[in-house]
């Protein structure tokens, strides 16, 4: 541990709110229909899209129409990405002559990108052509994020409107998010990344004098939205650890910032749209507090190193001027321990899932933290849009218990939390553990599934648990060590990712629809205040307790026992 390490982590937490605040103001403006000079520039395109969509883009949708639109659009996305991969060999812009992708892998990949998971059972540079990367995956990087934002907007409208059936129009929300938020930010970030040395080319892979083929491609354009949209699917197999995908500490910092930016702004946007900015600040504060604690915990665990090595005679694992000390296994030297710990926690707290180091090689405790962050149902910032709506479900849960304790039937922002709201909340809370634990249990006793493990015993179990945690929560980061490209993992994984995304999204839309129809009750001294540090603390408590109570036994058999064994067996 060093001052320098803590300072690098602190810097991120200082800058993020400063960027999120103006972005939230911009989002409020653009969703109100005023996109400023961007509207002047892209307005004709926006109107053109509505013209093509025809009556679809007209008027308000109730929650069922909104949900049908989301489902239809996503299904079309899966079909398109699936078809592109199967036809890859016959399509242009394929300088390396990649062949068609196997159908189970193609399905897994298509579902993975449409659900904003970006779990990768393939290696980008040796499987997919630039055309498929851009037209298939790149497009979904934008659209899956915009879909998340649309559903989030629908839920916010559920809180801000009263006695209304309409939740807005999915197609309008989708178009505005893409044109005025994601595209400009992605363009800006891509240019910054190129300036730092990220490659951007359609050329064939060059070969070095000793015969090594160097993979290249349109990386920067893919990379920007991969982080801004909390997607995380790397152009290269090594993801953000690859020097062409994340060449400098500055690009690393920008990428962490990019993947947390929109989720952080979304929390503030929520406050603005429901007419009480303190609500948004409370949510953001709660999220950042957990993330900061997680980043520091991972950093400390990694800086402490592996006791079986650090206690060996002649080994100096203290940070010195010329070396960072601690556990550097699986980490890039240009990033070091602190940056890697921050990246690992930010990528799992948000549902990005990109990696700049191999989580598999972390100390057991250092690897436990990213896993737990995902097990908090991706509510700590979470995915673009999906993070906020996931967190709001937990807010409803927290309000329900805390509201009773102040002697009123629970309400949030003047909306009564009644049996229907509780039913939807219960589905969301129940679904995620089921999607993680049941497939993990199946894989733990299935010999064919176990052959994919890279390690035995507790560490192997961590690999399994991490994989399904990542897929069920639509994170997509890989612990590593698990060879997932088998029909079992491809098909089961696709199912888990689909259910994880839409099994949450549909109850959320139903919740939004019922909330919008309710009157908004007045708030007073007798109503539970939900903007206070006390409530923020309680909310954090609920998120942690629900996550911990659900996964403590499984974690005990994975990283926890591994950590204990590691330290107990050390003399």
């Amino acid at each position: 541990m060093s001052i320098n390490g803590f300072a690098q982590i602190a810097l991120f937490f200082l800058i993020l709110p400063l960027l999120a605040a103006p972005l939230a103001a911009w989002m409020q403006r653009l969703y109100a229909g005023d996109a400023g000079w961007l509207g002047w520039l892209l307005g004709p395109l926006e109107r053109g899209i509505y013209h093509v969509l025809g009556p679809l883009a007209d008027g308000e949708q109730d929650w069922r129409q909104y949900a049908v639109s989301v489902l239809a659009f996503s299904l079309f996305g899966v079909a398109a990405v699936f078809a592109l991969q199967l036809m890859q060999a016959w399509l242009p812009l394929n300088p390396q002559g990649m062949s068609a992708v196997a159908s189970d892998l193609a399905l897994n990949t298509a579902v993975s990108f449409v659900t904003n998971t970006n779990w990768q059972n393939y290696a980008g540079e040796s499987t997919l052509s630039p055309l498929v990367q851009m037209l298939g995956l790149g497009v979904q990087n934008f659209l899956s994020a915009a879909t998340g934002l649309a559903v989030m907007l629908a839920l916010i409208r559920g809180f801000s409107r009263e006695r209304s059936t309409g939740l807005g129009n999915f197609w309008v929300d989708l178009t505005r998010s893409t044109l005025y938020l994601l595209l400009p930010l992605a363009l800006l970030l891509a240019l910054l990344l190129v300036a730092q040395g990220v490659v951007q080319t359609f050329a064939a892979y060059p070969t070095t004098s000793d015969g090594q083929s160097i993979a290249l491609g349109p990386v920067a354009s893919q990379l920007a939205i991969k982080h801004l949209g909390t997607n995380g699917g790397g152009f290269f197999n090594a993801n953000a650890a690859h020097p062409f995908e994340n060449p400098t500490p500055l690009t690393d910092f920008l990428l962490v910032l990019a993947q947390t930016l929109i989720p952080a702004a979304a929390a503030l946007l929520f406050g603005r749209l429901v007419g009480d900015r303190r609500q948004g600040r409370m949510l953001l504060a709660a999220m950042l507090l957990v993330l900061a604690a997680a980043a520091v915990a991972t950093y400390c665990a990694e800086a402490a190193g592996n006791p079986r090595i650090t206690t060996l005679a002649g080994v100096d694992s203290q940070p010195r001027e010329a070396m960072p000390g601690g556990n550097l296994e699986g980490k890039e030297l240009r990033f070091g321990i602190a940056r890697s710990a921050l990246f690992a926690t930010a990528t799992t707290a948000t549902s990005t899932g990109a990696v700049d180091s191999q989580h598999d090689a972390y100390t057991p405790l250092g690897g436990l933290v990213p896993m737990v962050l995902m097990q908090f149902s991706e509510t700590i910032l979470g995915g673009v849009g999906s993070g906020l709506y996931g967190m709001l479900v937990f807010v409803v849960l927290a309000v329900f218990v805390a509201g009773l304790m102040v002697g009123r039937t629970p309400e949030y922002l003047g909306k009564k939390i009644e049996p229907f709201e509780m039913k939807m909340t219960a589905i969301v809370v129940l679904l995620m553990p089921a999607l993680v634990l049941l497939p993990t249990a199946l894989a733990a006793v299935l010999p064919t599934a176990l052959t994919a493990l890279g390690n035995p015993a507790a560490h192997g179990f961590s690999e399994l648990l991490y994989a399904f945690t990542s897929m069920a929560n639509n994170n997509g980061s890989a612990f590593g060590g698990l060879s997932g490209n088998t029909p079992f993992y491809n098909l089961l994984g696709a199912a888990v990712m689909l259910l994880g995304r839409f099994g949450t999204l549909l109850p959320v839309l139903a919740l939004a629809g019922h909330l919008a129809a309710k009157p908004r009750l007045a708030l007073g001294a007798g109503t539970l205040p939900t903007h206070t540090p006390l409530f923020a603390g309680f909310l954090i408590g609920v998120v942690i307790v629900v996550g911990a109570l659900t996964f403590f036994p499984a974690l005990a058999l994975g990283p926890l026992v591994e950590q204990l064994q590691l330290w107990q067996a050390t003399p």
Partner: protein
Amino acid sequence: MTRIRHTLYEPRLLREATLAAVRKLTPRQQWRNPVMFTVWIGSLGTTVLWLTAVTGVADAPADFTLAVCLWLWFTVLFANFAEALAEGRGKAQADSLRRSRTQVQALRLQAPQREAGSERVASSALRAGDHVLVEAGELIPGDGEVVAGIASVNEAAITGESAPVIREAGGDRSAVTGGTTVLSDWLIVRITSNPGESFLDRMIALVEGAQRQRTPNEIALAILLAALTLVFLLVTATLLPFSQYAATASGGAAVSLTVLIALFVCLAPTTIGGLLSAIGIAGMDRMIQANVIATSGRAIEAAGDVDVLLLDKTGTITLGNRQATEFVPAPGVAVERLADAAQLASLADETPEGRSIVVLAKERHGLRGRALGALEAHFVPFSAQTRMSGVDLAQREIRKGAVEAIAAWLQQHGRELPAAVREAAETVARQGATPLIVAERPLPGGRAEVLGLVRLKDIVKGGIRERFAQLRAMGIGTVMITGDNALTAAAIAAEAGVDDFLAEARPEDKLALIRRLQGEGRLVAMTGDGTNDAPALAQADVAVAMNSGTQAAKEAGNMVDLDSNPTKLIEIVAIGKQLLMTRGALTTFSLANDIAKYFAIIPAAFAGTYPALGALNLMHLATPQSALLSAVIFNALVIVALIPLALRGVAWRPASASQLLRKHLLLYGLGGVLVPFVGIKLIDLLLVGLGVA
């Protein structure tokens, strides 16, 4: 109904509850509570496991399985016991009500006239719309409306109050309740309810819980608890394959089914699940103890949500009667002359105000009350048309009344109200008092003259200001409803410390106010008794009808206060809040308990596979078996320990929502985390001490 106050653990109730707890073990009864149903299944499962262990196929040591099995059955029984105890307390009350519902003979009339033809029928044969004649000394055979006659009625059977009340046709005192006794005179009553639907029947059904439907909030909480139970079912069920994987990889045996079932029961929210229905029944019970009958549990919950109370000034905020405190003479009139005239005008006035004028004149000016007969005086009572009262003497007539009424009288006789008196009246009104103008006119045909005014002061009830301050701290606003003019109302409102007032209120103004407040997103509570209150009562979220009120008011409200005490509204709100707080507190406590249970069970369950997990045995429990058993025993005993809390409700003092949240989080959240660490450790020590472990 006589008020029955039970001690919590009356031996007879305890005995009956114990028997009922065993009777409730049938699956049909258990099915209604999903959390406890899963525990019931678990108990059954461990019983089977024990039987197979005895016959040779051991999943875990037979003695251990038996111990777990017994304590799981106890867990179910304890939850049943809590519910049965709460129900038993209600049943005792229902029995006492039922005793007053005896069969009586009724005299059914063919027409609503005393002389009409009649026949004797059993009260159970009466239908809505029948007319009956009830003479002195007879029981009123059913709920109804008086259509003719006036009588004093003893309603102690319903209200517990033995002082008789007057019931007469028309107006707000026309409702009678079956089972009450006519003491004097006679009444012709139009029956308004069919057999089995009377007020008494409904009360009995409510008290007994026969009609108890789960409230929306209870259902919402039950959904949450069911979801959590399912999560924990998933967690423990998947632990079997996880532990098989671990055992294959690292040696040792996979976790036994007995341990998994024990773990599941410990994690499932059994504490709140087992006490949930008892909390609801006890809330209804506390309402009945306060002599308030709620027509549904939903109404009790709504009482907790109320943010505005509409309170009638008279009787709630001020004492029912105003008192004369000062004589203010008109310019040029001696104060003694005013006092004398005022006293004369009030001698025959039996209203509290009139009596207080007589007393004030006597105390201040030594004027003794005189017999009107000796003065050949003729008393002019207050009428709605003239809005004045007074006295006609041989040589003069004296009138007293409100400013506008006297001004109108003066105008009739060609005079104006002097500006000085009008100003004086306004000053009095601004101070929250009511000015009563006194004027006289020599007979025959003399010039009318204004003598001055009597200051009538409303007496604000002692301690009411503090209660309003408490309500404000809880975020509940108060609105005073009064027929007084705005000036008077503002002054009394300031003195009593209400947040707002509605002056010169007519029933339709009340209704409009409620609609406006509800439009702003507020939940409104009010009390009412008159038929003209009915629309407002129907509109309000919590509407407490006075038992002394009309049938229409009682039908429109969702609660009836048997004591007819409008201040009760504040108590009703407190009971509603307490019910919800108890639910929240026990839910938090129940969930917080799980943390300690994990630290007891996880190291114990995997001691064979991963001894390193022993580091998580923070409580240093003796053996894996004692650790598991201690957790299971704690889980069962905590239900019993919390029964008094569930039945009595959490103790609380009025405070803002933030303060309440902080206090309850500390007590039930943090307490819920820490208590089981201590409890489980103590039970473990005891098990070791007894040599069981």
